[in-house]
């Protein structure tokens, strides 16, 4: 049962979207912690 190209594409794009968002999420968390003096 071959994975349909539409599903395959959606799967890859969704994963890529998270990978793109990840550094932004990490940086904004860092800024928030830094402001509160709660980095480490």
């Amino acid at each position, binding site marked *: *049962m071959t994975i349909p190209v539409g599903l*395959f594409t959606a799967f890859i794009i969704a994963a890529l979207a998270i*990978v793109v968002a990840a550094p932004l999420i990490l940086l904004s968390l860092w800024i928030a912690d830094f402001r509160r003096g709660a980095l*480490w």
Partner: protein
Amino acid sequence: MNAVDDAILDPTVGWLVLAAFSVIWIFLGWFWGRGSDQLDDYVLAGRRVGLALGTATAMATWVTSNTTMAAPQLALQMGVWGMFGYSLGAVGLIMFAPLAGRIRRLMPTGYTSGDFVRLRYGKTAWRIFLVISLCYSLGWLVSMGMAGGVLINALTGIPYHYGMSVILTICVGYTLLGGFRAVIGTDFIQALLILVGLVIIAVLAITTVGIDTIHSAVLEERPELLNLLMPAGIMFLFNNLLFGIGEIFHSNVWWSRAFAFRPGVGTKAYTLAGLLWAPIPIVAGFVALAVPALDLNIPAADMVGPMVAATVLGTAGAVLVLIMVFSALSSSLDSLLAATSILVVEDIYRRHIRQDASAAHLRRVTAWVIVGLGVLTWLLCAPRIATLAELLYFTGAFVASTIWPIAAGLFARRAGALGAISGMVFGSAAGIASYFAIGFYVAALVGAAVSMACVLIGMLLGSREFDWGRLHERGLVQAGSPA
């Protein structure tokens, strides 16, 4: 092994990249290491790490060279279920979230997973657990060291022994100088490098070739890779999920973070880290599926990642992959060195040899153990015996057999030593047997299943209920921290 004619990058470029990052990491190690005189500062960053750094370190440590190299390899060998199955390794991180919170609450003065097993199940279970844990740690260390040498050689032509030595020396260096703070701080930067590098490579692969083209080319040349009913792929799914859970639940790499995070951070950090890690093997694996569309020859499956990146991006791609893989390796090696050294110092040195050691003394011993581990790893990597890397495949059965002893030990009062011991022993044995009888992609699954049965039987037959208060030991006296 490298059956390709030329390395992709010039050795000079390779040396420059390695030198630049080495200087940065060592400097940061020294910078962040100032003031880490106390044991708890050196080995656990003062037990106050916040959410941002906590999330990044959990995510980055779980991205090993395997994620960036083996995920493409698995995609090339097992197709879509290979990629997706690999990403199920994120489940281990997410499931550890409740454990991290509980560990922090139950054992505020604890140092290692070994401490827990000793207090929870007694000395016999503890020693069996230590054997599994140390073999796994050493196997992981060696596989990282070897991967470093192989990758640098394949990408730049720099000889294996030089590349391997450079990576190990740098990681030992900044871990030694800066302790756990250096590990966590560098992990944050390395996490960003890994993510950004991967995005660039993937976006370029998609815009150069196109997902449709990739799909149809694979369908024509390697059809089973897109088959959702590929049997080996289906067997791989839960095996990989349980292997990941086993690795994370038992290993001091993750327990040390649970002890190092400030209260309340662990649960959120691990959940978020798991969610952010999950797509990485999918994107990295997808890059490998471009092989038919690019009409690229792959001589050895483990080279597919860098080769596709270099084809799509040229020299810049190869440099990017070098930086990414160097970051992935460093972020795992430093964590391994730190966590394994605490395990050795606490569970072997302090508990077996010098029970009355002071915190200051242990701090000094830890530094020596880090160096010792680095040397031992180097010695085991030097002969470049391929089978040493295969050690890690075997560990699937062993580490998966610790899942239920650990989880039940933390959450179920009725879990007892006999269940834990038999779980680890019979689970490991059954897993190894299935490894040879069927394949590497079922060993962890079988190990986990048999172990679970043993622990459950122990819970049914046993009657003693554990008092959680027994996990709270009196802490070591140190300047500036509560006893």
